[in-house]
């Protein structure tokens, strides 16, 4: 990996386009929010909320279990890559129990990667942590592999990068974040429509 692919500034600049691409295809409530500052750069997120089918409570249940996902798409300066923070609750707002939250993520990851049940060490990638700016407890996926992944996913050509290898072009940055979201969003049941890339 040659270097950071994104900076916080580039991420911030790409957010409006990311919002436009997603809200063009998804009817969920969606907004950009400034949640703090890092030196003199605003810390911004795309915040959205949606209902998705949860893991089946048991085989005999005919009613689908729904999970309310509150998702914050932000940026980690430490890893120089996007990061997800999310809350999971029942549709009435009651937070999911920790074991149900873990099951929800596990089922989503396994069904999208085809990984055999029980082989995924969820504890090494999923944690409930304080949101870095907001302070409230939220789940997050450890970004340790993201930098590597986004390097492979980005479709930015050399012309879109500056001397340090950083993605400079806003369009390229937005597409890179969208590509990353296509992969990581699956953990919370988010399917990014392919049309968002057009």
């Amino acid at each position, binding site marked *: *990996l040659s270097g950071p692919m994104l900076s916080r500034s580039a991420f911030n600049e790409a957010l409006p386009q990311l919002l436009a691409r997603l809200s063009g295809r998804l009817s969920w409530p969606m907004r950009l929010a400034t949640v703090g500052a*890092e*030196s*003199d750069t605003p810390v911004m997120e795309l915040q959205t909320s949606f209902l998705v089918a949860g893991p089946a409570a048991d085989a005999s249940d005919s009613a689908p279990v729904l999970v309310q996902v509150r998702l914050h798409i932000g940026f*980690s*300066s*430490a*890893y120089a890559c996007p990061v997800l923070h999310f809350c999971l609750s029942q549709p009435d707002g009651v*937070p999911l129990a*920790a*074991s149900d*939250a*873990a099951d929800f993520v596990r089922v989503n990851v396994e069904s999208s990667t085809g990984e055999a049940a029980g082989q995924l060490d969820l*504890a*090494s990638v999923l*944690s*409930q*942590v*304080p949101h*870095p*700016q907001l*302070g*409230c*407890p939220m789940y997050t996926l*450890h*970004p*340790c592999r993201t*930098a590597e992944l986004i390097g492979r996913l980005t479709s930015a050509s050399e012309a879109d990068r500056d001397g340090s290898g950083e993605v400079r072009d806003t369009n390229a940055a937005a597409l890179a974040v969208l590509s990353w979201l296509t992969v990581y969003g699956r953990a919370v049941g988010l399917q990014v429509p392919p049309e968002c890339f057009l």
Partner: protein
Amino acid sequence: TPDSIQRQVWDGKLPVCFVLPEDPDVPPLYSLVPRVGYFPALLDRLRAHLSRHAGIDEDSPGAQQLWLRSAGRPLRWHLPVGLLYDLERPKPPPLPWEVEIRTRDFPTDELVSFGPNNSLESYFLYCLKEADALKHRARVINEMGEREHRQLWQGLLNDQFDQFSVVNRKLMEGEAKYLPFRIYQQEADGGLSVLQCLAKPHREDSTPLTLSDLLRICMPNFADPVTLATHGVSLPMETPLAWAYDKLAYPDNFLHLVLQPSRCNSAGDGESSAMQLDSSSEF
């Protein structure tokens, strides 16, 4: 010797008195708690105490959803014990530090919940990973296997400095790209502001970056006189960040700094580490 500061930091302990206000007949539990440790590591001991003295079964919802309060506010127990003590306002409480055990109304929107599905160990590792991402693009922590990750945690949990240090040395040595730190400010209304930004060990001219420089980077428009303290000790503002980090970082590999307004003094009452920051300060 250089090690002795790190050892003193490791050995620092706070006497804590855990009480159960909902049942005053239950005797308090006294404990010498490591400043660099975490309150959730004591949950099993607290549950055993409640089981023995308060008739609260360890598997009951009350025991399982146990949380801690100090001065009427939930203790943000994802933060190290010493940092929580140093953050108490208006000033650090008298010792032993009285901490309340609560078995009802877990504040789910304020406190991280630690348990079998979200272990303190994995949170500790999450912090170590972020610190190494800042320092070494996570190369060192990723090269370590699970065994060494476990050793770091077990060393901390069991108060084994040598067991911890032999692995931690690898994370702390070598050139760091950015230094992991956070600056905390406890607000009067109970809120906590946490500042973090990217800080290199050196300035553009290759001289060491100082704590004054750090404040200028993190809080560009701030002008009031302040002190930065860690482990209960105020640091001179000309202290190089890299030195402070090497000697005073917590086991999670972060330098946790508490920002306090300082009493500006001309008579020298011992609080000599305040320095007024404004655009006319020169280096």
